[in-house]
């Protein structure tokens, strides 16, 4: 038993009482990829469409007011959930867009500097010799955008390497984050290794050299209490769909000063102050970064998800996941032929647990689990360089959430053994 009443929670998620593959009850252990949605989230979206749907911030009629209210209430709810001010919270389509928004601040400012030097904030202007720092455990979403920035500006990408235990190796950190460094962008909790990183410390190192500090909180905010103002970052990105919210909505939080300093990213309607054919000026944040008709129904849905999590309490969510993590690690550690990729103990780690089974390819492990109704993720989890670091092409990953219990994990362990049996690798 953990602190949560999992049976009651499961009942809130219609999909969890469905079956797959010819009658196998679904055991969903792929929440690291995306979470399932409680009925309150689906109801909130529908209610918006049936009672308040109109273009947000673009009309004066009754529905337009209702839609704008619903959208801005959602922003307040979501910001408040993480101890932030609503005007510092930007809605995007997913964390990938949020991280690209951050990265494009640099390539856009650099391009602008050539033709309008006074409009380009020097904080974001890069030149050959400058560096950007990430880690070797980044999700592609926090790696490729920075590679692209470097290709477009001549800056150099550096990364913090990993220890064999799947932790950041900070031995030579002084030669990685140094005075050439203009941005440090790191994952809070790794989606493949489960590692929880010392982001506060890294943000301090970034600020010590006047670099912009960015955190990818995709795997932390859904799973533990996170107060944005206590992370020490300038910018923090995450996705709604991994925290019980709808697809199609992500968040970017920033300090007031960084949001004022950054150039806009997507441009168009609703982000302007004045527009003439010759020249436009831009609105203040968050509007400045929210061009176009926003994902209003999805914001409302995400707010409902956040209220659902608040009702449970993020401390309870974290305690529940810690218990599941310990349970899973113990079970996997005791299985012959199973090697955990990432920290093997539960200190400073989340509930996403990757492993390889000797003699078996993850696709085949996942397929056997799937045939018993257990959904896990197989592949490189969009962290291909991390797989390379550990000498594996891919892994199998169990990633539970509030609606999972020990019985779900037992089924996964049974499935791994069934795979070993099926392919005859447990001799």
């Amino acid at each position, binding site marked *: 038993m953990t602190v949560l009443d999992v049976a009651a929670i499961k009942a809130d998620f219609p999909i969890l009482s469905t079956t797959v593959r010819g009658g196998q009850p679904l055991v969903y252990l792929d929440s690291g990829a995306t979470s399932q949605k409680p009925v309150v989230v689906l109801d909130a979206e529908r209610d918006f469409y049936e009672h308040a749907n109109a273009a947000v*911030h*673009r*009309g*004066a*009629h009754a529905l*337009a*007011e209702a839609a*704008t*209210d619903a959208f801005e209430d959602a922003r307040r709810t979501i910001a408040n959930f993480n101890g932030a001010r609503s005007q510092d919270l930007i809605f995007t389509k997913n964390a990938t867009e949020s991280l690209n928004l951050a990265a494009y601040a640099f390539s856009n400012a650099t391009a602008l500097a050539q033709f309008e030097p006074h409009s380009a904030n020097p904080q974001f202007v890069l030149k050959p010799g400058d560096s950007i720092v990430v880690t070797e455990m980044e999700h592609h979403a926090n790696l490729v955008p920075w590679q692209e920035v470097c290709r477009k500006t001549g800056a150099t990408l550096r990364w913090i390497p990993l220890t064999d235990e799947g932790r950041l190796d900070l031995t030579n950190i002084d030669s990685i984050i140094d005075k050439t460094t203009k941005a440090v962008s790191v994952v809070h909790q790794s989606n493949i290794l489960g590692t929880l990183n010392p982001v506060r410390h890294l943000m301090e190192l970034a600020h010590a050299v006047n670099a912009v500090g960015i955190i990818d909180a995709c795997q932390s905010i859904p799973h533990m209490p996170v107060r944005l103002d206590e992370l020490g970052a300038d910018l923090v990105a995450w996705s709604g769909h991994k925290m019980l919210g709808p697809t199609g909505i992500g968040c970017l939080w920033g300090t007031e000063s960084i949001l004022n300093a950054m150039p806009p990213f997507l441009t168009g309607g609703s982000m*302007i*102050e*004045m527009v003439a054919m010759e020249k436009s000026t831009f*609105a203040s944040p968050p509007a400045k970064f929210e061009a176009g008709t926003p994902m209003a129904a999805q914001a409302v849905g995400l707010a409902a998800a956040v209220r659902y999590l608040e009702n449970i309490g993020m401390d309870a969510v974290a305690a529940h996941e810690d218990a599941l993590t310990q349970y899973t690690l113990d079970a996997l550690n005791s299985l012959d032929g199973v090697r955990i990729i990432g920290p093997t103990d539960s200190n400073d780690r989340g509930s996403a647990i990757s492993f390889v089974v000797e003699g078996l390819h993850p696709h085949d492990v996942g397929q056997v689990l799937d045939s018993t109704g257990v959904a896990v993720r197989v592949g490189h989890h969009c962290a291909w360089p991390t797989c390379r670091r550990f000498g594996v092409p891919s892994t199998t990953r169990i990633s539970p959430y509030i609606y999972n219990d020990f019985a779900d994990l037992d089924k996964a362990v049974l499935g791994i053994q069934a795979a070993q049996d099926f392919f005859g690798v447990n001799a």
Partner: protein
Amino acid sequence: MNLEALYQDIILDHYKNPRGKGLLEHPLASAFHVNPTCGDEITVEVGVDESGGLRIGYEGQGCSISQASASVLVELLQGKSMVESEQARLAFIDLMHSKGVGEPDEDVLGDAVAFAGVAKFPARVKCALLAWMALQDAEIQAGLLTTGEQT
């Protein structure tokens, strides 16, 4: 129809017969504000008279609410001390954010109490505030107000 709740007679009167419209001869500062959703514009200028009272001039174009609000503002604050003016300005902003449940103080707000109904129409609150925000900006530029006092 709750049109009358929004468009009080006082508002319509100020809209049709704006008071004190026109710019100042020698302003200390001038602020141009625009409502980015509809394009309404206002220029508010400030100065100080011999007895230390506020001098305000304005020009603008826009809807009945934004124009009447500017007219009411000028009538109410012209010649007032900065302390009185700030008290009224802050009370007006509070009223506009009250979602229609605020109890406006007529002693402080004068004709501006007529805008109480506007607070029930979030999309029009920006119209009513346009001149008041521009005033704040002009006062800051003129050194009559410090940014710390911003709301």
